[in-house]
């Protein structure tokens, strides 16, 4: 075991897969000599060279579209979108092309690629460097969507994503890059896509989270534990395909479900979780399925007071747990 930061685990994951498989390439803005604006690809260009670590022009649609073509012709590209906020020019390529290629060609053409993008706020990133965009993509059959919360998962899920035969969107919360550390084995381990993890077992309330919100939910659970509220914290890890079994068995046990997500609430990913729980665990529910999420404004404001107003935090999640527990 080695202690790694979240971003080091991602970098190690890419480097090891590139050593293992010559078909793996990285392309994106500033990913080469600079090693990415967050240094996620630092050192890859020096090790793998111009052919496999490609600095692209500022062209998100091209980054994804050319990756699709490269995947059609035998490579396994890792496309980096510098900020998730800038993924929208590539939306057509991701949704109309990458996601639909297998279905529309009855498996004749497939797109094994990973799109990595830093997401999330609380880092003074303002409207266009803070967004959570997962709901746009979890809606789309044909895409897989992964959001890790620990260095171990970051590496293990990235390995699975690179080896997966379908397009995988891999979101990394940028606030976690250097603030979250953890044990990462030196072995060639992987974490399968589609499996949630129970981070804290409990009996009274299930808190469903992913990414940074897992850490906040765990802190919140700790706070309310002192008041006698016993929370189970579920880390989804993969948003699509969703691990229904772990979700539903947790809610069937606790009878109460709170979903915490940073994105604005309306039509967010938590709405789908709420719908599934309402449909498939209705008889077990002992309170309203509840969402706590970002406010419904177009994006996160810059000023620190406004940013704090926008962001979920452990105290806000703890309040929501208390209200639900008291129901």
């Amino acid at each position, binding site marked *: 075991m080695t202690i790694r930061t979240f971003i080091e685990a991602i970098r190690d994951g890419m480097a090891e897969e590139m050593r293992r498989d010559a078909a793996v390439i990285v392309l994106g803005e500033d990913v080469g000599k600079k090693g990415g604006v967050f240094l996620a690809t630092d050192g890859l260009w020096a090790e793998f060279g111009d052919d496999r670590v490609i600095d692209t022009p500022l062209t998100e649609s091209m980054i994804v579209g*050319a990756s699709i073509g490269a995947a059609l012709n035998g490579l396994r590209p890792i496309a980096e979108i510098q900020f998730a906020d800038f993924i929208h*020019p590539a939306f057509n390529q991701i949704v*109309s092309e990458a996601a639909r290629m297998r279905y*529309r060609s009855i*498996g004749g053409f497939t797109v094994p690629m990973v799109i990595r993008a830093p997401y999330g706020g609380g880092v003074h990133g303002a409207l266009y460097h803070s967004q959570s965009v997962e709901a746009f993509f979890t809606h789309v059959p044909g895409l897989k969507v992964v959001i890790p919360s620990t260095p171990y998962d970051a590496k293990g899920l990235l390995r699975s994503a690179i080896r997966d035969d379908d397009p995988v969107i891999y979101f990394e919360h940028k606030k976690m890059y250097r603030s979250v550390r953890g044990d990462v084995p030196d072995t060639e381990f992987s974490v399968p896509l589609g499996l949630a993890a129970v981070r804290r077992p409990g009996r009274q309330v299930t808190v469903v989270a992913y990414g940074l919100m897992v850490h906040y939910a765990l802190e919140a659970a700790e706070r309310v534990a002192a008041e006698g509220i016993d929370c189970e914290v579920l880390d989804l890890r993969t948003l699509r395909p969703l691990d229904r079994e772990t979700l539903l068995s947790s809610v069937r046990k606790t009878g109460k479900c709170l979903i915490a997500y940073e994105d604005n609430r309306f039509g967010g990913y938590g709405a789908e979780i709420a719908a599934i729980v309402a449909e*498939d665990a209705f008889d077990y529910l002992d309170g309203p399925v509840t969402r706590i999420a970002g406010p419904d404004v177009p994006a996160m404001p810059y000023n620190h007071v406004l940013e704090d107003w926008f962001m979920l935090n452990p105290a806000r999640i703890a309040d929501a747990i208390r209200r639900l527990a008291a129901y």
Partner: protein
Amino acid sequence: MTLPGHNGDAAAGPLAVSFGLADADLLAMFRTVALARAVDERMWILNRAGRIPFVISGQGHEGAQVGLAWPLRRGHDWIAPFYRSIATCLAFGMTPRDLMLAQYAKASDPGSAGRQMPGHYGSPEHHLVSVSSPVATQILHAVGIALAAKIRGLDQVAVAIMGEGSSNQGDVHEALNFAAIHRLPFVFIVENNGYAISVPAEKEISVPDVAMRASGYGIPGVVVDGTDVLACYAAGREAVERARAGGGPTLIEAKVTRLTAHSSDDQQTKYRTEDDLARGRAHDPLPIFRDRLRAAGLLTPDREAALAAEITDLVEDATDFAEAEPDPDPATGMDFVYADPAAGEPPPPWHPAPDGAGATPAAKADAAFAGEERG
């Protein structure tokens, strides 16, 4: 390099020699143009007879399509085509049956088993990338294919084809810039028929030729008469040879004409004058190529009659075959969402798998679950 249609018969008259081809090549090219036209015309008849709901046509584009596809290596090089690429697909190895199965959207449609609209062809075997409807996306796929070919040292050339209307999309700029920077083995073909559905070229493009835009990327831009099959062949060969030799991309604009409405749901007399339509008919590549091969003594009356009979048989066969093939089974509707069917969501309640046979593992698990827990 084995040219399609060559069949080992290297006899070559002066016309063929001037293009580095054999007589058999010229006849095979003509056959492909004529076959594409006949298949296309049959599609319209079937549409008007109520047999197929939709047609989008390549009539008027066939000469450019055949000439430009001919220098490529079939099954080795790649084409990302568009919805008018009927002759391109035939030139690259698809058959009239393949195309007609797509028109009828039958289970045995090799491109998509009836999932795609007609005109959205694709064939992994022939390296013809599956066509989608948002236009111009395919140029980036071809550029990515060329990138992979270069990295993997595959000696392949990748081609993207679209109309001049589509060429205005942002993806085209992003693609040409990147392909030019990396000198990728890539050829961009624009079939300019003068209309984006109803909007004439002068309202679409700020310069007389799309090819003029090539200079902005520092790559050659070539305008070619799309009614001249052999001029298209020569332009295509030069571009393909340059791409294969590491000389980077070329933009080829073929001036063609659109002999039909945009699609079976369009009425082009609403926005085109009779003069305009007559000019278009005068630029039909089929009679122009036929006259040239007649004048060269290659297309003798006997050969023409034999070819006409063969094409009629092929079109009849393809129509009858496709008409008789079964529709797709709704039980396959959930297939090919992911490589692993278990990664998909459960199917809807009406999904036809009463005994569990044919259902995805996820659906079976869901059904079992519902029975257990809700009972």
